[in-house]
């Protein structure tokens, strides 16, 4: 019957201890050693005046790749913890929800790269004389790039758990922890994993950017693949740059193949439907792992009992917990509300104080004329974002639909598009800018291409997914009625892929705002090309460290993002939801 769960009922299909198990044990040891080795590099002494030079040798690339990878995973771990804590609170408490959801909405519109200067300064002050401060700033940048999406996804799956499953948990008197472990995490596992994979993919962009930063007039280079690449380009060392790109791709593909694909394959069982999936996602690495004796022993003897122990420690009471607090628990309820209120007021007070300070600084440091100029630059960048979305749509919709209609091609092309979306193209910007210089392409137009290089892929793989999701009977019906050409596109294809296009375009446009900060101002060798736009201005003032201007620019960009979200993407989403759902 079933042979899928190594950690449960392992006795039934546990093989014997084999070569693979030795390999896995060695792998685990190696992993542990690497983590310690790379982590020790994070804690070395750091002096702003004497920043150590990076090793130029190609042979140091693996070390730098490891450092970058460790940074990514630390940021991801933080994101995951934040997701569980904050997403859970938002789903469970009405009061918390009232604060958290709007906050996430605003925060995910803030361009992460813009406040890199502030966070670098802050974290360096927190860990004086240690590289760990700069590491934290980088990790924080990745964290803010990926966390909102994950938190919101987790919250959403928590509140959409089917009522009968929740009732069952209630009638059998599961404690909070037991409910979390047996119902809430499994029920949201699928969406959590997909969101994590996407967020993690998006994180490469931020890690590459935050490793080599110039803030407050200083050039800071964290040891990592992104900074190695930046240094190679500065020197004009093409061979080193080439190997850095290869290393980056290797690390991305390895993360995908060795971590995310196995996890997705494993998580197939967490799907809600009670029907057998026709095409379960597969992973060669998962197939290797699941016959391993070591791993099943670990999960059976270590993870399972630990989870149960936590369940026993969590709430040790005899009766099941009441659904609605009443009577004496009203006091408890009152206490909760009180604590929340005090916390909320405390946060609100500091937020207000910060806001007042910021406004004062901005008023003192930014003239009205400058503010007008900033707004104008914002409009220019917005037009660039729209142009990118439009061009990418025109280019990739036909391609994506063609791919989606040919499942064999799609199976290859979709993961490729996902990897392309993960690859931090900002590493290669200097080279492209070199071509701009050579071919005399004005940066005002060229920057659109730079922005598109990173973000167009979201459109492509969403369109592919949309085209693949068109039910065969609708396609057959169109064929029997002889629909062809434009009529076919108008009646079937475009409406059917519309919801997917909205998702892709919204993600691409959101990423484009962040990308504009690196795409509108780029350097190749001694030449710096600059486009007129808010992104270029933010990059410029961040280098200078002009705090009031930075604040003003970031606020303006966040404002533009929020307004376009409200006026355009929200409406398109609800239109897609109302009119173009395929069920």
């Amino acid at each position: 019957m079933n042979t899928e769960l190594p950690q449960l009922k392992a006795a039934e299909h546990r093989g014997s201890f084999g070569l693979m198990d030795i390999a896995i044990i060695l792998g685990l040891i190696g992993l542990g050693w690497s983590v310690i080795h790379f982590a020790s590099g994070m804690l070395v002494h750091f002096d702003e005046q004497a920043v150590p030079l990076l090793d130029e040798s190609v042979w140091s690339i693996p070390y730098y790749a490891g450092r970058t990878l460790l940074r990514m995973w630390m940021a991801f771990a933080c994101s995951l913890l934040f997701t569980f804590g904050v997403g859970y609170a938002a789903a469970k408490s009405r009061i918390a929800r009232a604060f958290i959801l709007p906050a996430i909405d605003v925060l995910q519109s803030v361009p992460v790269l813009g406040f890199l200067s502030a966070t670098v300064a802050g974290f360096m002050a927190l860990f004086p004389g240690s590289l760990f401060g700069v590491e934290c700033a980088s990790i924080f940048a990745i964290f803010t790039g990926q966390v909102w999406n994950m938190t919101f996804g987790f919250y959403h799956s928590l509140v959409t758990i089917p009522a009968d499953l929740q009732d069952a948990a209630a009638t059998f008197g599961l404690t909070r922890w037991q409910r979390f472990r047996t119902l809430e995490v499994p029920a949201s596992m699928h969406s959590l994993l997909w969101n994590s994979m996407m967020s993690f993919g998006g994180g490469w962009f931020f890690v590459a950017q935050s490793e080599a930063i110039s803030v407050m007039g200083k050039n800071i280079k964290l040891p990592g693949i992104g900074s190695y690449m930046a240094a190679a380009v500065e020197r004009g060392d093409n061979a080193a740059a080439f190997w850095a790109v290869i290393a980056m791709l290797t690390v991305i593909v390895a993360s995908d193949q060795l971590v995310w694909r196995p996890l997705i394959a494993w998580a197939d069982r967490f799907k809600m439907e009670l029907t057998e999936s026709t095409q379960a996602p597969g992973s060669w690495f998962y197939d290797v792992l699941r016959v391993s004796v070591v791993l099943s022993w670990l999960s059976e003897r270590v993870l399972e009992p630990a989870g149960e122990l936590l369940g026993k420690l969590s709430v040790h009471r005899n009766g099941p917990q009441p659904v609605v607090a009443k009577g004496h628990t009203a006091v408890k309820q009152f206490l909760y509300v009180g604590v929340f209120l005090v916390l909320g007021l405390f946060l609100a007070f500091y937020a207000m104080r910060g806001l007042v300070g910021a406004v004062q600084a901005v008023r003192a440091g930014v003239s009205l004329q400058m503010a007008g100029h900033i707004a104008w630059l914002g409009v220019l960048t917005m037009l660039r974002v729209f142009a990118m979305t439009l061009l990418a749509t025109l280019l990739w919709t036909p391609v994506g639909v063609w791919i989606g209609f040919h499942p064999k091609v799609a199976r290859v092309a979709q993961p490729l598009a996902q990897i392309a979306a993960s690859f931090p193209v900002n590493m290669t910007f200097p080279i492209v800018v070199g071509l701009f210089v050579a071919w005399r392409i004005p940066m005002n137009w060229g920057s659109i291409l730079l922005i598109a290089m990173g973000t167009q892929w979201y459109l492509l793989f969403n369109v592919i997914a949309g085209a693949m999701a068109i039910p065969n009977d609708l396609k057959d019906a169109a064929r029997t009625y002889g629909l062809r050409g434009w009529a076919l596109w108008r009646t079937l294809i475009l409406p059917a892929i519309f919801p997917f296009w909205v998702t892709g375009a919204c993600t691409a446009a959101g990423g484009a705002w962040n990308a504009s900060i690196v795409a509108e101002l780029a350097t190749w060798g001694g030449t710096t090309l600059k486009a007129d736009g808010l992104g270029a201005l933010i990059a410029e003032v961040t280098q200078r460290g002009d705090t009031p201007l930075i604040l003003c620019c970031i606020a303006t960009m966040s404002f533009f993002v929020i307004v376009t979200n409200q006026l355009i993407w929200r409406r398109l989403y609800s239109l897609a939801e109302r009119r173009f759902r395929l069920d």
Partner: protein
Amino acid sequence: MLHTSSSLKYADVEKSPVIVELRNVTKSFTVAGGSEMKVLDQIDLAVHEGELLALLGQSGSGKSTILRCLTGLAQPTSGRVLCYGQPLEGINPHASVVFQTFALYPWLTVEQNVAVGLMAKNLPRVERDAAVEKAIELIGLSNYHAAYPREISGGMRQRVGIARALVSEPAILCLDEAFSSLDVLTAENLRHEMITLWHRKDATLKSVFMVTHNIEEAVEMATRICILFPRPGRLGLVLENHLPYPRDSKSPEFQSLVRTIHETITTLTLPDHPPEPVIVSGAPISRARNRMESIPYVPVGQILGLLSILRDTPDLTNIYDISNEIGKEFGETIGIVKAAEILELVETPKNDVRLTELGQSFLSADRIGRRSIFSDQIHNLRIFHIIIEYLRLQDEVEADQILKDIASALPYDNPEKILQTMVAWGRYAGIMDFNANARTVFVLKDDAEHAPSA
């Protein structure tokens, strides 16, 4: 009250101790527009030790809400829930629920799903595994330990649901339409096993409380049957059922009990009452006047189908025969008949259903003629005047506005469903249409000539 048998064994039930009871329980929900919908009204119901109590009612009558109150899944708006004489706080520790949808966790194996029933007890591993094994054995799932719910059939899934409910050794097992999403044969099989389980005297399981809309199922299984009438839910009839097990559904006693229930439901749902006074269109509708009559949530197509069947088979007049003929649950059939009756297309003397003259001429009319009759009849229904009055003054009206008015006119109905039905009927009559995007009801301009003048 009806006592059909003299078997002493079950007659004692009334004297045996009460496990859990509702006292004067009322339950309201907030519906669209923020108004309150009263689902249960002053319910008194006790489950005694040793009985198999069936709560019979149509969908939407509030029977699941009663089950939720008894198990602690829901709190009554007013009134008390007592468990062994003590006020119930939180989840009822003596009750377990078997769900209509099984409510199994798809990511857990059969064994793990059953173990969920014991999680709250924090037993040591060995004890827990033994209890799970026992429950799995008992319910006949022995070879399915490691299977996932999606790999097994519906009947097997519900067995897992039952094992999970039994593993914690509850005093009372609550079945929430537990057999209604299974195919006929599987359901029949499980019903027998459920009776056997309840009969086992060595078990801690004392009583079974089941909620169902299936009359035969209730008569086949229960020692006592309570019938719940909707809008708002109230107990209409309590029947003792002392037929010996296993019960033969073809036996005269069985059939007579089924008939009694049929008749009770029919007389209470389709009373032979004088028709409502005809309303002059245009006269203001005062909400202070006596209560408006609700309409059953029935699509027009089913009403038309009923009329055709009545015309094509003149011998078919008895409502139970009609129910069998169209293959619908009795509760649903009653709803369709009731809809046709308030439109005056059929009349229902006693248990019979007959076409009225209007119904005859409706059937022989062409499409436009039918629409005109339907429209006339709709204008005679007071509830429709909520919309008609708005549409006399303006071309379109917001759905939310209508929902509010419906909620205050029919406090026991679901306003959304009433509006859906009204729009469906109004569309057929060609007097109104609904814009799903703007959520407004509007006048059909082009067809205005078909609308009757008052």
